[in-house]
């Protein structure tokens, strides 16, 4: 699903965020991405969503060579990747329903189909019945669930989560992690960047560990 070969990323200011990273994550697998803040976790996720471009090396995601992907194709590629952000990135002037519907609206899905899929996604994250509320009236955990519903609403084959449990207490963050685990069991490939070792032990999934931009432990690649 994801293959990095000798990928480096150097920012214009000279900071080398990633150095010669190589790993493979197979389709329908799940892995944790760990490392201290500044180790390059966010940069790695940004390379997968083409928010940043690598300065060296090859990246293949969902059978697409990202280095060669033309600029105009980026939006269509991003629809194949669901992303969950630490700060949720919800639109606060729109209802829960409209927030979750956004990826479908963007890809031009019909009205009726949108309603059906939004309710299905909200049902999966346990927020059915709150679709008319505004995000600001929800708790932090619920807001994160809205973010998750939005990420999965158009059923992408790949989910990326950047510190999805950063601001949540232990019980809530366990629930969120279980949710990702469930999606993985449905066949979605999942990468979760986190600094909480507890989840890794609990779910027993392979780990990619970054340190100063280098991959120091690769438990995901096979062979």
């Amino acid at each position: 699903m994801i293959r990095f070969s000798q990928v480096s990323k150097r920012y214009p200011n000279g900071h080398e965020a990633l150095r010669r990273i190589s790993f493979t994550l197979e389709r329908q697998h799940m892995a944790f991405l760990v490392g201290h803040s500044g180790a390059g976790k966010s940069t790695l996720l940004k390379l997968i969503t083409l928010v940043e471009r690598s300065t060296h090396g090859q990246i293949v995601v969902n059978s697409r060579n990202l280095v060669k992907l033309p600029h105009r194709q980026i939006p269509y590629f991003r629809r194949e990747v669901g992303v969950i952000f630490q700060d949720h990135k919800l639109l606060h002037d729109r209802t829960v329903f409209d927030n979750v519907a956004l990826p479908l609206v963007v890809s031009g899905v019909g009205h009726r189909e949108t309603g059906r899929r939004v309710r299905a996604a909200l049902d999966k994250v346990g927020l059915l019945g709150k679709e008319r509320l505004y995000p600001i009236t929800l708790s932090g955990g619920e807001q994160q669930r809205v973010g998750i519903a939005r990420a999965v609403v158009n059923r992408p084959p790949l989910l990326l989560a950047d510190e999805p449990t950063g601001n949540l207490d232990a019980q809530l963050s366990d629930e969120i992690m279980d949710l990702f685990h469930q999606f993985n069991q449905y066949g979605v490939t999942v990468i979760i960047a986190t600094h909480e070792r507890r989840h890794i032990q609990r779910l027993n999934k392979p780990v990619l560990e970054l340190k100063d931009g280098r991959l120091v432990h690769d438990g995901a690649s096979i062979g």
Partner: protein
Amino acid sequence: MRAYLLRHAQVLLSSIGQLARMPGSTLMSVGVIGITLALPGLLYLLVANAERVSSEWHGGTHVSLFLRAGVTAEQAQSLATALVDRADVNQVRIVSSEQALAEFKELSGFGDALDALPANPLPTLLVIIPEPRYEQPELLEQLLVELRSLTAVELAQLDMEWVQRFHVILKLIRRALIVLSVLLALAVLLIVSNTIRLAILNRREEIEIIRLIGGTDRFIRRPFLYNGMLQGLLGAWMAIVLIALCVHLLRPPIQVLANLYGSAFRVAGLSLPESLIIVAIGVGLGWLASRWSVGRHLRAMQPT
């Protein structure tokens, strides 16, 4: 196709909603656009009406041909007949030296002093009125040159009357109208692109999110384009109302003036096609400004 149109209709509606949610700033920019579009519109009406007035007056140009002292009345008559046959001459009037003297005596009040002169010092005068379609500077100049070359002619003088000057002034105003229109169109572009810029900055976060979940730039651009076109549309409508108001206020006094001159002239307002042209210009400028503004800001925004 139906889904596509439906989406556009939704964006249009939400754009209207957005403008309605900020009535203050919307009214301001629409007002400025309206006034900016109304100015060249009014100037255009001024020129159009002035042209209609002047078309009622006929010509006014004539050439005064002073003949040499020795030319007899018969010679003058035959010259006049020859000149009338020319294609560019409509009419020739002979003012004999006696007639001229009598007229001069009457008008000047030097009657007795002129009687003391031994002979009539005034030459015979032919007043030549050109054909209306030859009333163009180059053609008149050519006529003048040919008349001057006649042996019987002492002096040929072209009298460009004020109608001619009026036409020249109208031409000048029309030129100024074009220059002014271009400048004011630029002003509209700047006004709209500025309000669009503010709208984009207000929705920066939303644009970022839409990009992250795979929204194309075309999708992001759409509501801003509608916003710009709506501003242009409302501004154009405002301009049409302002112009109609001005015409309404000016019509009675101009009517009085026209009646004093015995003219049936009536001030014309904007016709339907002219109003539609203003609307098209407003919408077009709004689209152009927002397209330009959005394009510029989207390129500068991260993520791309």
